[in-house]
């Protein structure tokens, strides 16, 4: 049902995050503590399924039937959609080892001063889209989260915050989405309220990040192919290949530029040939890769190509 909700709201600015809660002793997996603290503030005790929007401004617990849950949850989402944001968030993220690091610039458009006194914070939630973990029952798993407290951000003020989510271990980084949000506690012992949320962009990215070719026996020419470097506006980068048979042009540029890759087919060995192009920004903080794989047929080997019809929906 939660997956159905995510699908139904996929064309609207709504993200669905599912945290697992284990009642085993000791628990196998808990919701990320930073968000669990916020969710628990919406009502005393424990009752599942527990659902919040706007960080607990609206919440519901213990839906007994699917129709009850569906009706309640859609009403909560629609209510939250109708309520305007009271902050602006611009955020980008990058990887540092297994840590996700986020830089978020927040403008407080609300009438509330965000401080440690009202537990205000900027959160980064790591979600892996379309993956079903054994510990989760949906394809919307929130796998980690962290909070950076806001010491003081008065109405109208803007500040930049860094959030670090350590030990992130997804099954597929390409499916990871970083949700950044700002909230505060409305009163001691009361629920939280959310000013705004945003999806963080990657500081440095490349598209496509994978190229695959099959070369018939005797063929040495591989057509030139390109990847476009994406990310923070104006960011300068350099690129290098770990294989001599793969040349890059240009090998440096700024975000928005494309890299044309050319291959010296005569230098390829029979079988699989793999190269990694590493793109790094000028501060050497952000890195992204392009994988190039070329299968060169051995003498006498025939590569069979099967072309499948594709039907697309209008």
């Amino acid at each position, binding site marked *: 049902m939660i997956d159905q909700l995510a699908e139904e709201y996929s064309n609207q600015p709504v993200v669905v995050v599912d*945290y697992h809660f284990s009642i085993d002793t000791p628990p196998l997996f808990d919701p990320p503590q930073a968000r669990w603290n916020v969710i628990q503030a919406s009502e005393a005790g424990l009752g599942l399924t527990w659902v919040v929007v706007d960080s607990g401004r609206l919440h519901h617990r213990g839906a007994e039937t699917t129709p009850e849950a569906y009706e309640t949850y859609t009403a909560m989402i629609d209510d939250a959609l109708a309520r305007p944001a009271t902050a602006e968030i611009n955020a980008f993220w990058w990887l540092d080892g297994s840590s996700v690091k986020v830089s978020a610039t927040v403008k407080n458009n609300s009438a509330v001063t965000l401080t440690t006194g009202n537990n205000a914070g900027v959160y980064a939630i790591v979600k892996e889209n379309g993956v079903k973990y054994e510990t989760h029952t949906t394809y919307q798993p929130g796998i980690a989260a962290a909070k950076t407290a806001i010491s003081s951000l008065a109405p109208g003020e803007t500040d930049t915050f860094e959030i670090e989510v350590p030990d992130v271990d997804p099954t597929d980084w390409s499916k990871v989405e970083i949700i950044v949000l700002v909230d505060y506690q409305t009163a001691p012992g009361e629920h939280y309220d959310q000013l705004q949320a945003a999806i963080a962009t990657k500081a440095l990215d490349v598209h496509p990040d994978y190229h695959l070719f099959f070369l018939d026996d005797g063929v040495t020419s591989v057509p030139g192919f390109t990847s476009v470097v994406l990310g923070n506006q104006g960011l300068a980068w350099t690129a290098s290949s770990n294989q001599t048979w793969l040349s890059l042009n240009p090998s440096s540029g700024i975000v928005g530029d494309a890299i044309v890759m050319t291959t010296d087919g005569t230098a390829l060995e029979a079988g699989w040939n793999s190269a990694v192009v590493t793109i790094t920004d000028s501060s050497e903080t952000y890195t992204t890769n392009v994988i190039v794989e070329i299968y060169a047929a051995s003498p006498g080997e025939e590569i069979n190509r099967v072309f499948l019809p594709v039907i697309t929906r209008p």
Partner: protein
Amino acid sequence: MQLRNKLLLLLALSLLAGLTGVVHPAQSQEATPQEKLVVFETVGSPT
């Protein structure tokens, strides 16, 4: 044209340009407010 007349013409043109600006002020450059993103968080969902 004498220098005095040229200066008068320039003054008149400046006034006209100013008036045009008053009648047609520059459009507001105010940025579109950021669209709200709703985060629906669930714990222990059965399905």
